């Protein structure tokens, strides 16, 4: 059990560090969001002087804390966080950051999560197979998949969109579902789910294409190493069927390091979606992040960053739990 205690302690420290970083980073940014917001308003209203009221309203939301010490701001920041209050977005004023995130998160988690799991499973299964049949033509599969990994993701995605969506018209071009078909937004119907899946196919394919190589390579290498472990030779000498040796002795052990990596990858689901969502106009978290950074939207940036970090920690913790079951050695030693 102490294994878990140690991990929990680690996560708490990391959580604290991430949140503090989250607090500090945006504050280190130059520029003054309130001023930017006021400027935008004035410009958009054709230079009309803004009333004192308006200026007040905006500075109190975005410029707050100017006269507070950093420490007081920090405490206030924690106070707000603990109440689940992520603040108000300035680029999407007056939308609540929490609402924006809540709207975007499911899309990202489902699409990228599923794609990551598919990529991992595919990589592990094929990697195990390639490792098992080492020394055959299958070995060439490894360098080929790594080429896909070396292509800039967005470049691959843009080319695929140009070919499959625009030229051939096989896949949709943008969005998480057919907005023309469902103008009222997401609904709970098979038609909608079908539409969502249809829209997810191409993004998912690009994610899988660009990430499967890493899993495959890692698994294959581990498989090759594991195959010469004593216990595999022993298993063979025991007269076990090749199938049993492959699954229970070689693959299972070889997959353990990949599983640890999977925790991280799963955590990076949300963070890793940024470029993808930009390319496919996918209604997820990543796009919020880009908008927040480009608009210097403190609150939104903090919120998204926080959510991203939290998902990473949660995913890692989850994998730690599983890891303890898969590799009993871990449970025993801290």
């Amino acid at each position, binding site marked *: 059990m102490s294994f878990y205690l140690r991990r929990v302690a680690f996560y708490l420290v990391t959580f604290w560090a991430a949140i503090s970083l989250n607090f500090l980073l945006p504050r280190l940014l130059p520029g003054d969001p309130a001023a930017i917001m006021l400027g935008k308003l004035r410009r958009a209203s054709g230079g009309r002087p803004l009333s004192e009221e308006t200026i007040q309203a905006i500075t109190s939301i975005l410029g707050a804390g100017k006269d507070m010490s950093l420490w007081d701001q920090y405490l206030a920041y924690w106070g707000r966080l603990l109440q689940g209050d992520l603040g108000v977005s300035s680029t999407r004023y007056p939308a609540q950051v929490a609402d924006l995130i809540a709207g975007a998160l499911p899309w990202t988690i489902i699409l990228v999560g599923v794609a990551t799991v598919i990529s991992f499973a595919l990589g592990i299964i094929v990697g195990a197979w390639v490792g098992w049949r080492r020394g055959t033509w299958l070995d060439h599969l490894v360098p080929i998949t790594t080429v896909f990994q070396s292509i800039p993701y967005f470049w691959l995605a843009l080319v695929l969109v140009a070919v499959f969506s625009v030229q051939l018209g096989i896949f949709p071009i943008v969005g998480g579902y057919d907005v023309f078909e469902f103008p009222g937004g997401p609904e709970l119907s098979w038609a909608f789910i079908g539409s969502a899946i249809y829209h997810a196919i191409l993004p998912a394919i690009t994610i899988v294409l660009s990430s499967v190589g890493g899993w495959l390579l890692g698994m294959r290498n581990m498989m090759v190493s594991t195959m010469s*472990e004593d216990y595999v030779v022993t298993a063979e*000498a*025991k007269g*076990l069927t090749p199938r049993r040796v492959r699954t229970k002795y070689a693959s299972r*052990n070889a997959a353990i390091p990949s599983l640890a990596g999977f925790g991280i990858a799963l955590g990076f689901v949300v963070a890793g979606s940024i470029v993808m969502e930009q390319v496919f106009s996918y209604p997820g978290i990543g796009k919020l992040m880009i908008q927040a950074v480009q608009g210097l939207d403190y609150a939104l940036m903090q919120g998204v960053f926080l959510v991203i970090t939290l998902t990473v920690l949660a995913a890692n913790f989850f994998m730690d739990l599983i890891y303890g079951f898969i590799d009993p*050695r871990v449970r*025993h030693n801290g």
Partner: protein
Amino acid sequence: MGEAVLTARDVSIEYEVDPPVKAVRNATITLHRGEILGLAGESGCGKTTLAYGLNRLLKAPALMTGGEVVFHDASGRDIDVVALDGEALRTFRWDKVSMVFQGSMNSLNPVMNVRKQLHDVFTTHRPAMKRAEREARSAELLNLVGVDPSRLSSFPHELSGGMRQRVMIAMALALDPQVMIMDEPTTALDVVVQRGIIREIMRLRERLGFAVIFITHDLPLLIEISDRIAIMLDGAIVEEGDAEKIYRSPEHPYTRRLLSSFPSLRGERGDFIRTGAAAGGAA
């Protein structure tokens, strides 16, 4: 001396590396039913390679370039081990000849508990066995080697080195094999533990009557426990005979040299020249 259970004739094994290594050259040994045959020789002389050859476990770049290995089954049937193939080979292994490996400490799958690894043997070779029977037999085996059956649920890392070794021996006994090959089963262990395990092996052999090929480079130990001893040098068996004979009147000069490099515990010092005249030269 009983009838033969395993005969190997003119076995040659080569590692096809550059340059090729002739690890075993024309080795001929006969293992009799129920005896302990000691196989001694310095490191790299080909002991392990020969053992693997006997059990058809050679992996590339090893290649058996010649010779034959015949297993004389208790049923009277002779099995040409070299010609075995596929299913036949698979079912032959462990059932007739089992093996305790040199790296025995790592022979257990670290992420499976002992029970599963024992049961694996039964489900593969004795598919008719019921679960309860398997369980009972596993417990019995652990008892046999002096490990508490409650350890069945343990993972290898939860066992001490000696226990792991015993579990491997239990596993090797699982199917009542007629021959057990033990490749330095105790080298990595502490002397006291080592002694305990060897005692255990001897006891089991008395009871179960299997034959043992015991490989080690610890010649004094071999002499103490074996019925017969084969001395290997550079892949060839240079001398074979009763333990007594090897100890008292070794014929081959290599055997003699090997013997003399072990200073005797209570007797003479062998080649050891700490004091006295041999101090030659430097002073």
